[in-house]
């Protein structure tokens, strides 16, 4: 299944992260991190705990501001953009610790994801004119379709907080997909999943990629990362120590050192 890695077009990167720095007080979380994610690849970001993966993630998605550097999505500068503007530019994310709208139904959660691609305001809502009704039923239909794609159609009317852990993870993905992203950024989507759920997730992510969406994946489950990703970058202490195909990264001495400790080498 791990095919066509070499043939992927590398001339036109979708996301370019250039020399991004970030420190919290005296602690350097990221130092001059650069990476490029090609269109329609699954790009893995791994590293030991505290390596700066989620920090980089939060910078790319606008929750943190960087101290320096540049982030571009399809030529659009993302740094200093508000999170909602970044979503507009085509970058959607999920959260490491699930952040669904707990007291909304699964369907409503995904419908909220359509917000950024729809436009009717207060007047439309009050008048409920034809265009608003059309938009509303389109939102509903698209949301149902997305729920179906992540196998949650039967849970459409359940409150998000009542879904099982694995279902919540997939609901978050459906909600992110509802924003029509070019790049879907997933922060540890397999965390807390059992092996069969992880396998389902793997299939789902392949399906999403097949539909033309690029995926950035932070993950601790090495088997998942190695099987799924086209390319991987490894962070350690805020620095990128390796980048390349799964096979390349697995053999890389610095990666082995980071994961197993220097003394063993």
């Amino acid at each position, binding site marked *: 299944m791990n095919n066509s890695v070499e043939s992927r077009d590398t001339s036109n990167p979708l996301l370019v992260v250039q020399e991004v720095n970030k420190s919290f007080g005296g602690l350097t979380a990221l130092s001059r991190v650069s990476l490029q994610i090609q269109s329609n690849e699954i790009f893995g970001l791994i590293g030991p705990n505290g390596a700066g993966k989620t920090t980089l993630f939060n910078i790319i998605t606008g929750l943190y501001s960087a101290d320096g550097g540049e982030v571009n999505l399809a030529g659009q500068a993302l740094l200093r953009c508000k999170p909602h503007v970044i979503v507009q530019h085509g970058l959607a994310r999920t959260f490491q610790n699930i952040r669904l709208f707990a007291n*909304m139904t699964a369907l409503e959660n995904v419908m*909220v994801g359509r*917000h950024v691609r729809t436009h009717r*305001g207060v007047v439309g809502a009050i008048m409920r004119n034809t265009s608003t009704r059309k938009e509303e039923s389109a939102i509903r239909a698209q949301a149902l379709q997305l729920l179906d794609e992540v196998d949650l159609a039967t849970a459409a009317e359940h409150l998000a907080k009542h879904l099982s852990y694995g279902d919540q993870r997939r609901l978050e993905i459906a909600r992110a997909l509802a924003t029509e992203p070019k790049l879907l950024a997933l922060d540890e989507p397999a965390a807390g999943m059992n092996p069969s759920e992880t396998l389902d997730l793997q299939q789902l992510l392949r399906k999403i990629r097949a539909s033309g969406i690029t995926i950035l994946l932070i993950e601790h489950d090495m088997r998942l990362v190695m099987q799924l990703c086209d390319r991987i970058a490894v962070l350690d202490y805020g620095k990128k120590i390796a980048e390349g195909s799964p096979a390349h990264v697995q053999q890389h001495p610095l990666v082995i050192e980071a994961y197993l400790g220097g003394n063993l080498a």
Partner: protein
Amino acid sequence: MRPGLNKLQTGWHALQRDRRSVVITWLALGLILACLPFLTELSLGRSWVRILDFTLLYIMLALGLNIVVGYAGLLDLGYIAFYAVGAYLYALLASPQFGLHWPVWAILPLGALVAGVFGVLLGAPTLKLRGDYLAIVTLGFGEIVRIFLNNLNTPYNITNGPQGISQIDPIQIGGIDLHQTQHLLTLTIPSTHLYYYLFLIFTLLIIFVSIRLQDSRIGRAWIAIREDEVAASAMGINTRNIKLLAFAMGASFGGISGGLFAGFQGFISPESFTLFESIIVLCMIVLGGMGNIAGVILGAILLTIFPEALRYLGEWQQLLLGRVWVDPNDLRLLIFGLALVLSMIFHPAGLLPSTRRARELHARRSILAQEQDSLYEQQR
């Protein structure tokens, strides 16, 4: 997907079949609402029709605050300020204070607009605040507005200070002065009844707008912000604008209601707009069921009528115990407070919780089962 869709569809068909009984229910409700002031006057007296009028004003206020607190989850303790803005705008534009006598149809929309602007003025500096911090700032805002109104009689006399503004023009609609008893065929309609019908129309309008907003893209965005602001912004919601919109919409309801209040009372002073009023309106939506329109209406009705009913405590004591043992005014607020505490203990989500919370209660059992399942799986 099929089972989910099918379930939705059968639900829809059931709804269509029920349509006739729904129509009948609504007709009956309409009839009751239309006769209510006359029935009330017959059974309880004219003063209770006045209480009905106030109930409607409070329903409007509570529905306005419900948008800010119930939908968007922004705890606002200064909401009565918008009521004050609407009331003073009406009073200044239709009273001898400046010799202006604008018609009501010009003042009310303007009142809604100006109150909405005040809503944005309150909202803008508080965008990054939540919960108790927001509550303190809004509380301050409410007090500032009241103190301004209290002191804007020097150096230029605008609000007439603590004396308030009197001789406010009564509301006139199509040449009908609502302060005068009107005759329709054989029917004599007193002023309190006329105001009842006017307020009823506005209340229904505000209920309608509330419902429409609730089930809309904007309503979903408000609820999303209430649930998780960070996630909402990460889903592309411009949290700043959507929150300001909630403040503005809620405030404009308050502004309309305030204008109606000024025309109805004929006299207003800063004393009508104290922190206590803000808290009572907040109690209404908490007691009734935050975020649920029917609950909020119920809360407003109960909290307007209950304290008034307790005024009869003296008479009841006389009747039951032979003499008045405790000053009814002392007892009134005591019982009122006790009732609030008890209802919060036994109905923490409100008397009519929003469907979200109701669903939560229904699903609790199955969730327990689910949790046990997942625990079991983890142990394996």
